[in-house]
């Protein structure tokens, strides 16, 4: 194979890839270029900014934790579902995919109808004195709802790629199914879990639609960075851009930082 023959299709692919990258990166560059740099320090330490940032980080971390606890077992079930009948298998996959394709506002509305104080489950919770909407807990639920598929699909992909027969080896050494899950399955797909958790956190940080619908918007309680940024855009674009910048920096830092640090050079 000569280099000349290879470069034909490669050039097209490079050009398209460059276009795709430009589409992804240039809007962010727009934020950087139009950022009110001289005012930025003042805007960034403004109480509203710090409050929204703190709330976003707190809820993002809790949501990611919820996604891990709930999502890893779901990923295991999903990976095993290849042996099921077609209908339940596809239904399960569709159910996991729904939050990805549903407009987040609709997701938020659905959460209200389920968990609102008159919701299907919410009215029983209300009798117990628990009302979720307009609480920080509601923010976590909304974020968990929209971010869960990212974790489940990342872990499921890793499970499918992993050699599951080592689980048999573990069982033959006396490990119970839960011990196998904890000591073999989870470490085996650790890279997938790490990647999923990072995506999950980034998605939770950026969550807007489901949060504002289900949790509302109140400073310090439910007004996360994206909501604060949107509200600021109505009156003070500089403030909005400053908030967007904070969101961008945190997301990019998380995506860059966690990725390579995870594995101690232990790929099988």
């Amino acid at each position: 194979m000569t280099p000349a023959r290879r470069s034909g299709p490669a050039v097209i692919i490079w050009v398209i890839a460059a276009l795709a990258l430009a589409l992804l990166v240039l809007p962010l560059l727009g934020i950087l270029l139009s950022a009110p740099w001289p005012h930025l320090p003042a805007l960034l330490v403004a109480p509203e900014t710090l409050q929204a940032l703190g709330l976003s980080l707190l809820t993002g971390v809790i949501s990611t934790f919820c996604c891990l606890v709930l999502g890893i077992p779901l990923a295991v079930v999903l990976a095993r579902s290849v042996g099921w009948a077609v209908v339940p298998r596809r239904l399960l996959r569709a159910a996991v995919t729904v939050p990805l394709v549903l407009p987040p506002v609709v997701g938020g509305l659905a959460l209200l109808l389920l968990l609102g104080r008159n919701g299907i489950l919410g009215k029983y919770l209300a009798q117990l004195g628990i009302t979720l909407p307009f609480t920080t807990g509601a923010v976590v639920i909304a974020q968990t709802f929209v971010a869960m598929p990212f974790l489940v699909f990342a872990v499921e992909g890793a499970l499918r790629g992993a050699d599951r027969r080592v689980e048999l080896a573990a069982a033959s050494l006396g490990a119970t199914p839960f011990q196998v899950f904890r000591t073999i399955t989870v470490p085996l797909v650790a890279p997938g879990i790490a990647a999923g958790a990072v995506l999950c956190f980034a998605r939770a940080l950026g969550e807007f639609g489901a949060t504002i619908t289900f949790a509302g918007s109140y400073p310090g309680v439910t007004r996360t960075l994206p909501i604060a940024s949107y509200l600021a855009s109505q009156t003070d674009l500089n403030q909005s851009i400053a908030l967007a910048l904070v969101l961008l920096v945190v997301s990019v830092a998380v995506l860059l930082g966690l990725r390579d640090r995870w594995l101690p050079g232990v790929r099988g």
Partner: protein
Amino acid sequence: MNPRPALVAAATATVAALVLVGCSASGAGSTGTPTATPDSLKGTVTVLAAASLTEVYRDLATQFEKLHPNVTITQSFGGSSALSTQIIQGAPADLLATANEATMKTVIDAGLTDETPILYASNVLTLIVPPTNPAHVATIADIADPAVKVALCDKTVPCGSAALTLLAVEKLKVTPVTLETDVKAVVTKVELDEVDAGLVYVTDAQTAGSRVTQIPVPDAANVVNRYPIAVLKGSTNKAAATAFEQFIFSTTGLAVLKKAGFGTP
């Protein structure tokens, strides 16, 4: 009350003109006549309008399109401030209709209006509660009770600044559970019975019909939002845009607005 700088002079002038239109409409019963002949108008008119105008502008557009079959009105509704921001950021549109003068002023200041905006309608706030009235709200004073869950618009949107003004007039200190991005979101939260009360425009309460219950607020009449509309500099179809603008404050248009609960400015 909010100070209304710069726009005041122009607004007063148009109010005078509007009062005239209003009087002649009620007095002589003349019909609104479009200024251009129907056949000369064609194309698309893009209207960005405040969320509180959603239903009434749909009505107005339908009626206008009957008069001018070659014109299509495309409308986008949202929080007034968001719409103004979109215009300032270069969104292509022919007409902008906001829910108060302050937001329109940001567009005037940016030099993006083609003319002095016309004030053609007004709106006042009202208190709405779910039909079951779970918190037994009887007067606006009741919403100051911390146990009552209240939804307001955020202060960055017109219905929010109006709500703050009204609460100041009432000398009430209210801690809402949520500050929504537009008035329709407040109505939704009340409709779904997720909050006990909300302050919205009387027109939105009217649109929601029996899905919410209105509690009269006597002082609300003193806190008035005026609705300006303006043809934009970037308009590519000024003839049709102007015609639609004039249709809105024709007798027919004003009747539609009145039926929807809007007042005169």
